């Protein structure tokens, strides 16, 4: 039995409505408890900001495309090198660091739970292998279904139950957590050299539209009773004028779940563009945020862009090809048979570039214009908008108008006429930042009942203690102190153990992976469905029995069983 007592902490725990109360947090055997014995180890967190461990609801840290980003950019691997130190392995990389580097840097920032945003089912093993070497965070993987042949055929036949059955079988096979749609239909069209421009274009050879895919998968997701909603990367990413397409996609979403949203729209910054081309490119964050304000069934994340170099990687292959044609730098492209695809290119976002400056502003606007912080979460879609190490700066930008103005003075001068940002006075408070970085993310992912994102008795003892006295520091003025504090915790506690202390990771750790296993009736068991088996034998390069990821691939495994309505 191990016991730990965090005393005199200044706690913000939004899922319990606790806002800056001084409290003690008692921990026994990795869980939060009511009280501990006098023999417990004590950490004095006098006055320090203490929150549940951070939850990143959308990041790219593990899997084949992340790894490809590593090996196509040796210059990136030269940055951020640290030697082996204590229990810490040697690390390298900046925008696509090694798995250990990701894990350590997140841990030092107080993050304890990460969702890998896109896992191609066929390549799931690699993702799980890399999860094993991301030791200080619990992990889960959204699984890509955007160009799945079986699903598109079931949608064409109008059979939503079959869609659910295929999703359920696949998630169970690949140990996935949620459903990800990336440019639904478009990535499949790209395998034929085409794309879809918005939700009403038919996908070549499949006679379905993205709108049908989105609607049907959203329904299937609820039929399966999955903890997380559908995680959607809308069509037409990064194109001027695409906000209409985004609004159209949002308009398709019914309100189907009382506990959480029905749609999680990811990196919406990249989908809130106005104008008819790059010349009259402008921000359309207002209509997007207004729409989300009226739709409790939608939660989005910012996809904030920060200046500097990074690597973009997405299953949206055609979009990456278009970006490649703009930049003419390196490009990689990948087709995952019958399922999805991907593209990767390195980019540099520059202050002197008007388009980049507008993109930077849009992410902030979305967060500031969305009334409820529960509906707009703080992410960069790491590393697409920026590496996650920029999160503290983003939080500071949201908390300080003065900081925003100072930064705004350094961007392209024409930005002012294209974005509403300078007119927005809102400054978020610590509570709202806590929602956007942990409580809201845990709720949106549907993992609060599994003990994530809060500090109620019974929850996992994942705690982040930041060296900042929030009564004394005014974030709107002392934004530098905010950045400093959020960049490096005094203590990061994971499953009841101190894992990081003032920038150093102090233990080896071992993570847990969350995955879902929907209970599906025999009639809908795809493993016994002759058509599905035949399709598998005919088109996949692997045998059906070799396809599922064995449970040995999961380090510590937290299986979520759900009751499916089929």
């Amino acid at each position: 039995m191990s016991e730990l007592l965090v005393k005199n902490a200044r706690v913000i725990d939004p899922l319990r409505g606790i806002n800056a109360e001084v409290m003690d947090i008692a921990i026994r055997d990795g869980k939060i408890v009511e009280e501990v014995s006098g023999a417990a180890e004590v950490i004095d967190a006098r006055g320090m900001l203490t929150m549940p461990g951070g939850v990143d609801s959308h990041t790219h840290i593990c899997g084949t495309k992340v790894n490809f980003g590593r090996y196509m950019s040796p210059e990136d691997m030269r940055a951020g090198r640290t030697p082996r130190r204590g229990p810490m392995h040697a690390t390298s990389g900046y925008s696509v660091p090694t798995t250990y580097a990701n894990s350590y840097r997140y841990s030092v920032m107080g993050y304890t739970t990460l969702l890998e945003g896109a896992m191609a089912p066929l390549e799931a093993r690699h993702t799980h292998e890399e999860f094993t070497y991301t030791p200080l965070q619990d992990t889960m993987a959204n699984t890509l279904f955007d160009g799945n042949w079986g699903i598109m055929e079931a949608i064409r036949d109008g059979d939503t139950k079959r869609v659910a059955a295929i999703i359920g079988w696949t998630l169970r096979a690949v140990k996935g957590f949620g459903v990800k749609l990336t440019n639904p239909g478009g990535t499949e069209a790209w395998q034929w050299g085409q794309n879809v421009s918005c939700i009403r274009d038919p996908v070549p050879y499949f006679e379905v539209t993205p709108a049908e895919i989105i609607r049907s998968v959203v329904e299937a997701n609820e039929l399966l009773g999955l903890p997380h909603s559908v995680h959607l990367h809308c069509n037409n990413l990064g194109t001027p004028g695409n906000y209409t397409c985004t609004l159209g996609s949002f308009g398709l979403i019914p309100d189907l779940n009382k506990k959480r949203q029905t749609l999680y729209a990811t990196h919406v910054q990249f989908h809130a563009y106005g104008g008819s081309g790059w010349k009259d490119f402008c921000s359309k964050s207002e209509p997007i945020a207004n729409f989300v304000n009226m739709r409790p069934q939608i939660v989005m994340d910012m996809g904030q862009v920060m200046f500097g170099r990074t690597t973009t990687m997405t299953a949206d292959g055609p979009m990456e090809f278009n970006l490649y044609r703009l930049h003419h730098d390196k490009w990689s492209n990948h087709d995952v048979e019958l399922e999805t695809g991907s593209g990767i290119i390195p980019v540099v976002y520059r202050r002197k570039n008007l388009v980049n400056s507008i993109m930077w502003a849009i992410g902030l606007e979305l967060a500031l214009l969305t009334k409820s912080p529960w509906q707009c979460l703080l992410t960069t879609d790491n590393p697409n908008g920026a590496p996650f190490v920029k999160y503290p700066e983003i939080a500071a930008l949201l908390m300080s108008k003065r900081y925003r103005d100072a930064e705004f003075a350094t961007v392209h001068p024409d930005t002012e006429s294209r974005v509403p940002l300078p007119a927005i006075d809102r400054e978020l408070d610590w509570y709202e930042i806590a929602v956007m970085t942990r409580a809201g993310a845990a709720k949106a992912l549907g993992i609060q009942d599994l003990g994530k994102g809060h500090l109620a008795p019974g929850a996992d003892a994942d705690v982040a203690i930041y060296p900042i006295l929030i009564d004394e520091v005014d974030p709107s003025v002392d934004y530098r102190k905010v950045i400093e504090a959020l960049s490096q915790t005094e203590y990061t506690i994971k499953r009841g153990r101190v894992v990081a202390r003032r920038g150093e990771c102090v233990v080896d750790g071992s993570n847990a992976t969350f995955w879902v296993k929907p209970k599906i009736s025999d009639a809908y068991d795809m493993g016994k469905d002759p058509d599905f088996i035949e399709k598998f034998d005919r088109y996949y390069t692997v045998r059906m029995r070799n396809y599922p990821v064995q449970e040995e691939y999961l380090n510590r495994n937290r299986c979520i069983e759900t009751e499916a309505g089929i």
Partner: protein
Amino acid sequence: MKVTLAMKPAAKSFVPIEAESIVPKSFLAGTEYSVWRGNRELRLDEIFTITVEGHAERAEEVEVVLSGDETSRLKRVGEYMDAGKITVLGGIGMHCGNFMSGGTIEIHGNADGWLGREMTGGTIICRGDAADYCASGYRGGRKGMKGGSVEVFGNAGDFLAEHIAGGTVVVHGSAGDMAGVEMHGGTLVVHGDCSRPAANMKEGSCYVYGTAHGMLPTFRKVGTVQHEGRTLTHFTGDLANRGKGNLFVKDYEYLD
């Protein structure tokens, strides 16, 4: 100051020695350095007999002389070198002069792969042959050599001056396949033959005084020019990537 590092005869070993500490400026503060052989860290004097003559205040005044039969096992000699001189009385291993920005390296034997990779300044003279990726970039990198000069008196291997963005590379013998591939700038001169020169070049100049085998069809012929007493055919390209480089060849033959 002259530092002579004479390699001690060792039991036959094929394990290379990582010797990035051998750069002139290191020796201003003595010879207490280590190198790695496999996973073993060894003091410099376990590998070499060290002789120091004279005294130096600045790295410019330091000359390092490497001798012995197995100098070609030494890797990364002169990495990040910025001044002074290294003379190798024999061959040298891979990655000699990586990221070099100043000074001179003279090699009296052959150099292994990646000689002068991503160098930005200084001079490398190789009296023998240079293996693949001489004066090139690295795996997946954007830019190879950006400045300085490399002169090879023997032949060079494949991917000579890959991704070169500045500086001068001269090979007196022949080069292998893909010489000057992805060129962004700088000058490459091959006195002998090579194949598929300057593929996908954007800018810069590539001269082939011998025959360009497997000449790429994506270069546009402009005419002939006189260059140092030779009549060369002038091409621009690579048109496949909107390139505006110049390729000058004495003779060329397309693939059948």
